[in-house]
């Protein structure tokens, strides 16, 4: 094992003990059926009130904080787009030193950073890498809606292959997004931090418990959350959770954890075909059968790669059995 990860402070949530805590109030201005704000609310339920949030510029920042009203019930700070991990670093360092100097009342608050996929995979990747590498005790949550939605659905490096956005339009010379989605969880895991996970709000207990693990461990944690954007993806507003589940069932968005360097994959033995996932979204409507076949193959290959990494990380006694 690369890291000893102490999960002794982990407090599991069960179907009967789901917190009703509202870190974010009603009256926010997210679009109808926004799964990003829903996922954020789930994270806040799992975290509770003893937390300080740093939020990157983006949809969630905009819809929760237009002056003079705030949806936040916890201390919250927005500075800019690319620097949320650095802001969180400063908050964490200040909390620790103030705790050491006896200036904090009560238990040291958790530090939570939120960024969208643009803030995480693109403009904020450097600051994220720095904060993970330095080992700050904080949890970074990427709410991945797979494009720059706040500015009008432009492609990011997290936009999936084939997707139509306003800057990856399909055309006679274009399939839409021509690149495969950047694997930020793998980049986070490459920092050898104690905890990395992917999560989907369709699997809400799993999501909340991953957040609970992330805040329980000492050191940096990264959670990559799949966050359906009905507006940007071209689905009906009621379909966000259905699609969140489908992304997992088709292996488009596999759920896994990397604990102390060890991959733990939630196995999906009978995956649904990817076409089921693609066909209900307007952003993929232009894809041909051949395109869909290609995507299916690549999804299968990526899943197999993940499964292989997960099997590599078998319990220690088996590893020694060579």
């Amino acid at each position, binding site marked *: 094992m690369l890291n000893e990860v102490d999960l002794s402070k982990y407090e599991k949530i069960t179907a009967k003990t*789901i917190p*009703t805590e*509202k870190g*974010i*109030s*009603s*009256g*926010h*201005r*997210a679009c*109808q*059926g*926004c*799964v990003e*704000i*829903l996922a954020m*609310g*789930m994270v806040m339920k799992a975290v509770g009130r003893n937390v300080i949030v740093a939020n990157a510029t983006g949809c969630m920042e905009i819809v*929760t*904080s237009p*002056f*003079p*009203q*705030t*949806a*936040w*019930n*916890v201390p919250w700070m927005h500075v800019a787009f690319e620097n949320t991990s650095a802001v969180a670093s400063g908050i964490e360092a200040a909390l620790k030193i103030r705790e050491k100097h006896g200036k904090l009342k009560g238990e040291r608050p958790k530090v939570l950073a939120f960024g969208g996929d643009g803030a995480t995979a693109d403009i904020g990747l450097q600051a994220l890498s720095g904060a993970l590498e330095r080992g700050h005790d904080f949890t970074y949550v990427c709410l991945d809606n797979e494009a720059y939605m706040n500015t009008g659905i432009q492609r990011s490096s997290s936009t999936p292959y084939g997707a139509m956005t306003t800057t990856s339009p399909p055309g006679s010379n274009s399939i839409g997004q021509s690149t495969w989605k950047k694997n930020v969880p793998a980049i986070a895991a490459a920092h050898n931090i104690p905890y990395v996970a992917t999560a989907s*709000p369709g699997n*809400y207990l799993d999501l909340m418990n991953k957040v609970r693990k992330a805040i329980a461990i000492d050191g940096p944690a990264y959670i990559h959350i799949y966050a359906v954007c*009905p507006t940007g993806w071209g689905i*009906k*507003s*009621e*379909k*966000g*959770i*259905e699609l969140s589940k489908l992304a997992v069932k088709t292996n488009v968005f596999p759920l896994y954890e990397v604990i102390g360097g060890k991959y733990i994959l939630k196995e999906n033995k009978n995956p649904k075909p990817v076409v089921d996932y693609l066909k209900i979204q307007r952003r993929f409507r232009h894809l041909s059968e051949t395109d869909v076949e290609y995507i299916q193959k690549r999804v299968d290959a990526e899943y197999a790669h993940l499964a292989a990494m997960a099997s590599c990380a078998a319990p220690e006694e088996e590893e020694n059995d060579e």
Partner: protein
Amino acid sequence: MSAKALMAWQDLALGTAICEPGSAAKLKTGDWRSMAPSLDEEKCIQCGICLILCPEFCISEHDDGFFRPDYDYCKGCGICANECPKDAITMGREEK
């Protein structure tokens, strides 16, 4: 003071911070709604999944054990109806 401004600069909190947590609740987003959920209490098993999956955080458990939305905030997205395991919630045009 100009009518174009919300308040005088002297009345702003330090750094234009907002010091009233959760004040967004003053914004009643219910008027964004064109379709409204309604609950069939015969079918409802009071599982509360609708509460967990409401993006408006506006569904709460009532004294009778049923989970109902606060229509002041419900934007009518329909996730609760779509996800209800017993099809106890239906979306319909509201009579206003």
